[in-house]
């Protein structure tokens, strides 16, 4: 059984991610997003570009409910996030795998334990955890590193651990915020190709990056943000 099969229980007509006129204003008065409309179909893969401060991270953070929109509505996997209660946020996050530039790994735990964390949190049994973590490690080609600590790994390997952790629970949505930010071009391409593989088995991906050269070499949708608004969207110009 492929690792990422049977994800994304889709709801025929509903996009996986939908932004309706979404704005995010911070307490400082800074407007992270202003009036964003966006649809991502189930199984779609898109790159999010724009200069720093354009609102890429804010957009991803709204999807993962690290923040809530101040105006408009965000829908993910058929749920209106505005109406999601605080106690449901953990369950929502289990459906959204998140990958960060700084990996966010636990340095006092082995690679295996880091990747197992989402499954442990979800209360999965030992045998199932073992099986799934090994499969995820295999996906990111780190099977031999399961017992080591993240600090002994290279930046690219640490990022792959972060990716394995995000996909191990088979979430229908994967978000990545500058996943190749600190990597050389060759490693960056490897990581991106990994994402394309996940997309081929039905995961919806949204990847924020400013590496325009790299993403232009992939035939995927590119959404360009400028000053908190969608400035260009390759899906609409086609």
């Amino acid at each position, binding site marked *: 059984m492929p690792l990422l099969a049977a994800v994304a*229980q889709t*709801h025929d*007509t*509903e996009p996986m991610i939908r932004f309706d006129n979404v704005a995010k204003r911070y307490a400082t008065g800074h407007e992270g997003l202003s009036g964003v409309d966006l649809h991502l179909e189930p199984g779609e893969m898109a790159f999010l570009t724009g200069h720093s401060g354009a609102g890429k991270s804010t957009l991803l953070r709204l999807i*993962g409910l*690290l923040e809530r929109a101040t105006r408009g509505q965000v829908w993910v*996997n*058929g*749920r*209106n996030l505005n109406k999601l209660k605080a*106690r*449901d946020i*953990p*369950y*929502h*996050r*289990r459906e959204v795998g*998140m990958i960060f530039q700084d990996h*966010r*790994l*636990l340095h006092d735990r082995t690679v295996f334990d880091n990747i197992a*964390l*989402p499954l442990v*949190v*979800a*209360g999965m*049994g030992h045998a199932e955890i073992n099986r799934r973590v090994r499969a995820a490690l295999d996906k990111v080609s780190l099977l031999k590193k399961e017992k080591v600590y993240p600090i002994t790994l290279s930046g690219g390997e640490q990022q792959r651990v972060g990716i394995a*952790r995000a996909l191990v*629970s088979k979430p229908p949505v994967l978000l990545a915020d500058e996943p190749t930010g600190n990597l050389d071009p060759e490693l960056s391409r490897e990581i991106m190709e990994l994402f394309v593989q996940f997309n081929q088995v039905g995961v919806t991906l949204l990847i924020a990056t400013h590496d325009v050269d790299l993403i232009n070499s992939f035939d995927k949708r590119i959404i360009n943000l400028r000053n908190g608004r969608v400035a260009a969207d390759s899906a609409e110009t086609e």
Partner: protein
Amino acid sequence: MARTPKPPKFQRNRNPVTWALRHAQMSLSSLGRLSRSPISTLMTAAVIGIALAMPSGLHLLVDNVRQLSSSWDGSASVSLFLNEDVSDEQAEAVRRQVALRPDVAETRLIDRTQALEEFRGLSGFGQAIELLDQNPLPAVVVVRPRADVQGAAAVSRMAQELQTYREIELAQVDLQWVERLSAITGTIERGVVILAVLLSGAVLLIVGNTIRLEIQGRHSEIEIVKLVGGTDAFIRRPFLYEGIWYGLLGAAIALSLVLSSLYLLDGPVKHLAGLYESQFSLAVIDPLSLFGMVFGGPLLGLAGAWLAVSRHLADIQPE
């Protein structure tokens, strides 16, 4: 615009077996975490132990004194000090007369010579006594009331009646000091309750502060667990178990402190009791103290941890 009629419900684990298993795992892993820093764990537990041992030990002490005084309570007696001019024969006559009373169980005459001998033997003033040209001590009739004369009031009424005898200078109820002792122990007992409440508060704060520091130290871990979908209950759990373990360890330390104090005091107390020709020995730990330590400790630990967790966990949100 098309909409799904109802968003799918989130799946929550409601299997009690899995739930119990997870709790068992969590409690063991919390214990494991504590055992990885044994010195600081023991220091915290020792503070809790001392705080728990103090009221328990004091309670035990008061309890013992009370048992001692109640064993004397039954043998309350009235000492009749006779006038100095009463001869030994007249004293014996007084004794016989008193012995006829229906409420008297037993009488014993200590005549002036015997009183002097006793005084010389016990007081240590033997040589000073030699210097006196006459015996300053009166004869005493010791009266033990019948068992049905109960309580201080009845005994002192009896003493008042005996006081009316011409030969009797003073009828002294030997119960008074027992009553005073009982009043003193009552006061101390109340003090112990206050102390127990204060020290329970201290245990609460100690555990609360320890857990607070622990939460701060694991800030990034909590953040990441929230990021991958850990519920508040999941994040709370290890800290609550740590609180319980601290309390349990503290209770064990308190128990061993109290027991070793009892062991250390046992010899001297036996010696002291021997001097008073008493069979008294320290009682072992009472059920209330035992219960208070074994259950109160973990409960206070849990409460302290809860205090810290409910205050500080919500502050940590993933960035």
